[in-house]
């Protein structure tokens, strides 16, 4: 896909030990395969099958997606603020493409 549009919503800063909620919304058709398009051809399966989140280098969350996840998938999870660092979001798409986004959390 030409453009990968992800919206990550989370506080920019938090106190140490505080639990922060991270909300992630991605624009993606999540083609589950088998549908028939306007031209009569069958659309192959192409979904984001995994989202991995690391925080200051440590994995904190993983979301395994199958065909039952909606188009433009949304997910919300929590993580405990431990140190100032980057949250790195990496999506893996069918076919092997990966997309990465970064958000910084400042811990006071």
């Amino acid at each position, binding site marked *: 896909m030409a453009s990968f549009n992800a919206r990550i919503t989370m506080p920019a800063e938090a106190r140490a030990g505080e639990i922060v909620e991270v909300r992630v919304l991605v624009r993606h058709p999540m083609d589950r395969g088998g549908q028939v398009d306007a031209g009569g051809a069958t659309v192959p399966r192409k979904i984001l099958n995994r989202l991995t989140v690391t925080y200051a280098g440590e994995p904190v969350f993983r979301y395994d*997606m199958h065909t039952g996840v*909606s188009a433009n998938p949304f997910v919300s999870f929590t993580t405990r603020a431990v140190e100032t660092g980057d949250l790195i979001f990496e999506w893996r798409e069918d076919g092997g493409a990966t997309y990465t986004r970064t958000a910084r959390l400042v811990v006071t």
Partner: protein
Amino acid sequence: MSSPISPACAPFEPLPSRRQVMAAGAAGLALAALPAGAATPPALAELVARLTEGAAPERAGIALDIPQLVENGNSVDVAIRVESPMTEADHVRWIHVIAEKNPYPDVARFHLSPRSGRAEIRATLRLATSQKVAAVAALSGGGYVMADADVVVTLSACIDGG
């Protein structure tokens, strides 16, 4: 609409031709000539047992929040919360969502850790038809908890082929 799942959603099975039906009907075998129908979906209990390696999950300490009536099965909000201190010794390892009548019943799995702080997630799912949706959580101690909910879907995902 007669069927909640369109052919684009379920594996396509050609209907017998009129000639086949007539011939079979003449022989009194019209029923036998009809396709056996889509394979019956595995029962929810079976799907859960596969996740828990046979252990019976407890039905406590987990809340599955999903609307009882869904207008559009293409995007269904779900929230799941497990009561857990989320410490190194006692935390939720993962939460798995099953929709038993979806073409592929395993919907999603959320991997958590003590770093999560709370065992609480929200997401958007697709539901092919009215059915029971279940959430199974694996605890660090080796146990499992589950919750399920009946959901009525008025417009199923799959119907428009899109």
